[in-house]
């Protein structure tokens, strides 16, 4: 196990380096002169030159990348071109909000997804199965931002159960978490169902039943344990969708998190902020996937080291 952990951690290093290269390149992928774009179309020449100097755009690109990496290792993500404040200081306070939103939504989607999936598999083609799978299909097909707006209209404006925006109290968390968790719950429910159906037909389940075990014990202790293994991988992928979905939920519910901040920066063409937020998002995701992978390995000891 330890060997596996070390190997898996080493494997992420080239990916992390690749991600930094891609994030670094973003500014150079913009059509046109980045210095002109960042200082504004009509900016005077001196201002453009100052911007070029400030971002080190006069150096050869490999040198720029090394400078960027050197700063990164020291925790320096550059400065906002609008507010001139360090990018890290701007992002720092917002990370936790986004993380909370993503974590709560993940928990909600795992909880609902697994329960609905198990019930659907046990009662295959029954009323609950059909209803859950139709709902899941809708959950998969609805745009999150639309669901969020409709929830605001219904539960915040008309019924006044929950506040329409903000973050901090549990009431404020309800609607964004439902908005964000729905898609994930749908996918996890479908995955749990099909995985459960695979497992239920296996010999050892028949043996367990033949031994005279109660159906509940067979389902929850024998079947579910194995059925959840492939579900774990799906959860890993879902974390990514939840993190990027947080960008949308934060925009819809006016939550002051990292995602909404990133969108505002994109619209203001504040590229150092864009680069910083994208990098932080990617690093958190890589870390989350590492954790998922390791727990997958832990759950399924049959997987051989390749």
């Amino acid at each position, binding site marked *: 196990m330890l060997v596996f952990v070390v190997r898996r951690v080493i494997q992420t290093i*080239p*990916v*992390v380096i*690749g*991600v930094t290269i*891609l*994030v670094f390149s*973003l500014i150079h*992928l*913009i*059509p046109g002169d980045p210095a002109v774009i960042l200082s504004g179309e009509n900016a005077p020449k001196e201002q453009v030159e100052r911007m070029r100097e400030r971002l080190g755009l006069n150096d050869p690109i490999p040198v720029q990348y090394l400078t960027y990496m050197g700063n990164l290792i020291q925790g320096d993500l550059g400065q906002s071109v609008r507010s001139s404040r360090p990018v890290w200081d701007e992002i720092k306070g917002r990370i936790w909000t986004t993380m909370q939103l993503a974590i709560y939504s993940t928990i909600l989607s795992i909880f609902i997804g697994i329960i609905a999936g198990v019930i659907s598999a046990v009662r295959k083609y029954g009323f609950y199965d059909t209803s859950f799978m139709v709902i899941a*299909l*809708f959950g*998969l*097909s*609805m*745009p*999150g*931002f*639309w*669901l969020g*707006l*409709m929830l*605001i*209209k219904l539960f915040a*404006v008309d019924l006044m159960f929950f506040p329409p925006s903000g973050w901090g109290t549990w009431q404020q968390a309800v609607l964004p978490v439902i908005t964000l968790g729905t898609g994930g719950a749908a996918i996890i429910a479908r995955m749990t169902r099909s995985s459960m159906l*695979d497992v239920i037909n296996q010999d050892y389940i028949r043996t367990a039943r033949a031994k005279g075990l109660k159906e509940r014990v067979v389902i929850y202790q024998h079947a579910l344990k194995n059925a959840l293994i492939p579900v774990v991988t799906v959860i890993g992928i879902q*974390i*990514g*969708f*939840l*993190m*990027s*979905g947080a*960008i*949308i939920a934060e*925009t*819809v519910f006016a939550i002051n998190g990292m995602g909404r901040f*990133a*969108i505002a920066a*994109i*619209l203001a063409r504040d590229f150092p902020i*864009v680069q910083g937020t*994208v990098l932080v*998002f*990617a690093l*958190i*995701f*890589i870390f989350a*996937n590492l954790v998922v992978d390791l727990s997958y390995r832990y759950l399924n000891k049959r997987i051989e080291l390749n």
Partner: protein
Amino acid sequence: MVIMNESTPSSPEIAAKVAKPEAGWRLTYRRLKRNKAALYGGYFILFLVLVSIIGPYLTGYDPFQVDYSTKLVTPSAEHWFGTDHHGRDIFTRIIHGMSITLYIGFSSVMLGMLVGVPMGIISGYYGKTIDAVMMRIVDILLAFPGMLLAIALASVFGGSINSIIIAVGIWSVSHFARVARGSTLAVKGLEYIDAIRALGASDGRIIYLHILPNIVSPIIVQATLRIAISILIAAALSFLGLGAQPPTPEWGAMLSAGRNYLFDYPHVALYPGLAITIVVLAFNIFGDGIRDAFDPR
């Protein structure tokens, strides 16, 4: 080796016939026909394509004509889905937006497929260094959570329909590459591929005649389901202001405008979202159906 005379076709040709997926296609179609939901999903997609082509000629309003005398009218017999803040008929705009949505969905998936599938096949077929390099590239692309890569790319290319196609397309490259690589590896391991190679078939011939026809089905399944996701992501980008810009009748952009009137005129945001849901639902149902048809378990 057997003696070949003029009347017997050479062995690679026999093998090519064997590998031809025609019987497979017929079988697949029969299975698809049995899956009613999938079949209707497919018909519904055809209907949507038809609507996107002839629909704009049938609605009685101009999707761009601003008329403040009919501003924010609620749904009625005259304006089925009501009008927006510029007095434009929402039903008409949704019909006009259909072709944009389908265009974005099909083209971005096509782009992802045209780049990703060859990448995956080459990776899986040749293995070794080229495989390692390509798969690291795929890993890096997949290290950006969900639609974040598309958002980052859209921020670079600026807001337009073509820029979201490129952004969403690049994002799906990695997914197609993975599917194509996995399927290629599975086919490559089969004995008959070794046999054909022993008969002297070139790599190009093996890939084109023997690998490609055998990996088509997982790629089609992937493509159908990716169209659904791509439409959702593209609409989200436009909603965030990174994609289609007003006054384009793109559904995500319409929804974004409708946000400001949510409290009193929810119909402005309701219908574009419903339209997105229905189109995505059609592709999801159809995708599920052909997946079951290709890979019955």
